[in-house]
């Protein structure tokens, strides 16, 4: 009897709590909870859009909040990773509820483009983005960029011990000395650049060497943290993890120094984050407006002044002042339309990394 009472009481409590909180807090599911008293004065766009977001949640949230404040358009966000969402969009096909797709790297965009699911990006938007940061096909556009970097522990590696090229990391002397997060789309983008720059054979060889040498971590932050803690000497990640952590408490990057490969080395690859509007979008006007906003001054200023530390690339907005300017990175030229994520997944699966 006691148990029955407490069970019923527990359920009643939970139910009433849910009901009560629902009453107080209003609807709970949309991601944007910025000021709902948004003015509808921002142009003719209205309604709702769904964004499939592979970018960092906090960054996109900033964009969404600002966009909704300006236009009153309600935005629902689905969070995932690059290839997870790209594959999902392809699988969903015509039934996909997505209006906008934002990624961290370009291979996923190319994948969706090749499945002919993107609508043409508005001219007004493409005009804001420099040519090198968008594909020639005009089916999507770059929204931000990040640079590959090798973060290392100064106490463990001296400057002349650092590798001249990313390819050196596959050599025997680097066994057990570096870390990466192969399951992430970030690293897979780096591999796709390698594939594009050096060809399949060289990539396969490098991956095999990687399997021997590297330590796997789940997530770039975790990899950097491991370097910081002295577990491993270096990690191959993207630059903004370092700067982002430094801007916060720095507890995961205190002992870490970034090293840029430069010299058009595959390790100097600058990955373009992409944004595109789906053909099947039910509210294309608002979707295009969102993309325009991100690549516009206000959106790019979020990158400049915000906490994401990715590179701003459009509307002549300079990057965050703490970062190494893009021009100085000496990145290799890679056509984003040529990056093939499926091949990369195949190769990495074959190498036993996935």
């Amino acid at each position, binding site marked *: 009897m006691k148990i029955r009472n407490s069970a019923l009481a527990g359920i009643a409590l939970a139910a009433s709590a849910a009901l009560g909180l629902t009453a107080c807090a209003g609807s709970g599911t949309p991601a944007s909870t910025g000021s709902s008293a948004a003015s509808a004065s921002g142009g003719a766009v209205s309604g709702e859009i769904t964004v499939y977001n592979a970018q960092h949640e906090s960054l996109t949230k900033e964009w969404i909040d600002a966009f909704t404040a300006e236009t009153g358009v309600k935005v629902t966000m689905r969070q995932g990773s690059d290839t997870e969402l790209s594959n999902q969009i392809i699988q969903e096909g015509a039934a996909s509820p997505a209006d906008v797709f934002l990624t961290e790297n370009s291979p996923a965009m190319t994948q969706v483009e090749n499945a002919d699911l993107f609508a043409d990006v508005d001219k007004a938007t493409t005009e804001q983005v420099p040519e090198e940061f968008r594909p020639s096909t005009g089916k999507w556009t770059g929204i931000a960029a990040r640079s590959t970097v090798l973060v290392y522990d100064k106490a463990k590696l001296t400057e002349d011990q650092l590798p001249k090229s990313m390819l050196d990391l596959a050599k025997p002397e680097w066994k057990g000395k570096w870390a990466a997060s192969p*399951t992430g789309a970030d690293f897979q983008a780096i591999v796709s650049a390698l594939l594009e720059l050096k060809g399949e054979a060289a990539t396969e060889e490098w991956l095999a060497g990687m399997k021997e040498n590297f330590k796997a971590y789940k997530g770039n932050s975790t990899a950097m943290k491991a370097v910081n803690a002295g577990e491993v000497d270096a990690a191959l990640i993207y630059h903004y993890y370092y700067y982002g952590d430094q801007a916060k408490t720095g507890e995961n990057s205190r002992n870490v120094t970034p090293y840029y490969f430069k010299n058009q080395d595959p390790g100097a690859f600058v990955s373009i984050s992409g944004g595109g509007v789906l053909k099947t979008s039910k509210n294309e006007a608002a979707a295009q407006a969102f993309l325009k906003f991100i690549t516009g001054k206000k959106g790019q200023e979020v990158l400049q002044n915000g906490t994401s530390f990715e590179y701003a690339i459009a509307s002549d907005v300079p990057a965050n002042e703490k970062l190494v300017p893009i021009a100085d990175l000496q990145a290799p030229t890679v056509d984003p339309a040529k990056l093939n994520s499926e091949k990369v*997944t195949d190769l990495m699966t074959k190498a036993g990394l996935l």
Partner: protein
Amino acid sequence: MTSDLSASLRGSTTTAGRGNSPRPPFGVSAVSVLAVLIALFSLVPLGYVVYMTVATGWDTAVELIFRPRVTELLLNTLLLMAVTVPLCLLLGVAGAWLVERTTLRGRKIWAVLLAAPLAIPAFVNSYGWVSAVPSMGGLGSGVLIATLSYFPLVYIPAAASLSRLDPAIEQSAAALGLGAWPTFFRVVLPQLRIAMTGGALLVGLHLLAEYGAFAMIRFDTFTTAIMTQYQSTFNGAAGNMLASVLVFFCLLLLLAEVRSRGTARYARIGSGAQARALRLPLRGYQVPAQVFLLALTALAVGLPLYFVVRWTVAGGPQAWAADEFLPALLSTLGYGLAGALATTVVAFPMAYLAVRHPGWFSKSLELSNYITSSLPGIVVGLAFVTVSIRVVPGMYQTAGVLVAAYVLLFLPRALVNLRAGLSQAPKELDEAAQALGKPPLLAFIRVTLRLSAPAAAGGAALVFLAIANELTATLLLSPNGTRTLATEFWSKSSEIDYAGAAPYALLMILLSAPMTYLLFQQSKKVAGQ
């Protein structure tokens, strides 16, 4: 004539054919049809895996299954199970024995504390350990965390069984000259067989299905690899092949458990005060026992709790950002309630058949559901994603699909409780109500439903607990924009925002605690099943 008397006194299963009717009346036929539909539905994930394996083609399948990576995963998984399961058995039985059969001081508290780790999801446990020892990784850490998280799955049934053991058997052994240790091994332990095999099966299945805990410590198992493949290829062949291997192992485990259970499937439910067994005096072993239990509890419960609280405090009030936290909490509560309700309703036809019309039919229905529930959440999630995209696109990305997945995953928990409850409401009471003039449906509602309601509520509470802590199927199936406590915790801790993740962990533990207590109490009633 005395035998007749004792037969009729023994219970209501006389030869008057109660419950043995092979031609159930119409109302029961409707229930049977319903139950069959549910059973078929519950076979969808298994069907999906089989279909995918076949559809991939033999060559590709072989290529994808027999590669070094899979061997690596296989090795990891097998080693994990080979070490963790015996450890859990050891700790669980030892704990149960200390609490139930010795003069352990403070055993009422220990009894609950030893079941407490169940209130902490394994991935939160992992989070605590990684906070304590950041360099944790590999098999050893995996075994440590898994053992600390899952030994209650053996402890609870073992304790329940031990508390219901007939002391007369041990006393006879003593009269025959067996000392304490030989008695334990030759007399007590065999009677724990059902509890131990059941517990071992549960531990094994949890190990196979666990994702978050192992991903956090970089220990690769099938499930983590499937998740990785999913994130890279969404629904690629490689992931599906891994899923088929995983399902194969789950079925193997099921088979092993059924075999080793033997013919002792006898469940005693209901009243009947049993003579209390004598407790073994610990004397000099009291202090070591207390120390052992203290250490176990500290590691399993104390450590994760300490870190969760510490991170919560460190994070400060901003971690409780209402715009993220509240929706997650509400979603969890909402899905938990909806799932618990749906599961109980769905379980009813099967439980009804199992209790009122037992036979091969009801047993095969239960079996089909048993098989599905042994599948990891990730397989069910993958199956539902594919099926909903290809077959019922209108259902894709809806809450309904997620709730359906929960129902499939957690049906057995509701079933076990509902069966016990229905057994407490025998047919005779329904008939008495009918003889008193109530039409059959009204009699059913006023008597049977009413009497089985507490047990149903208990089962619903357990399903709620499971849903609140579920991660993988939720990650795969939750509609766009939905977050639950578990998924929010996961995304925060993946970005090493431990302070941000802490409030979610705390709340999950708070939600789970009362349900865990309930599970513990319930287990005492259904010992032997």
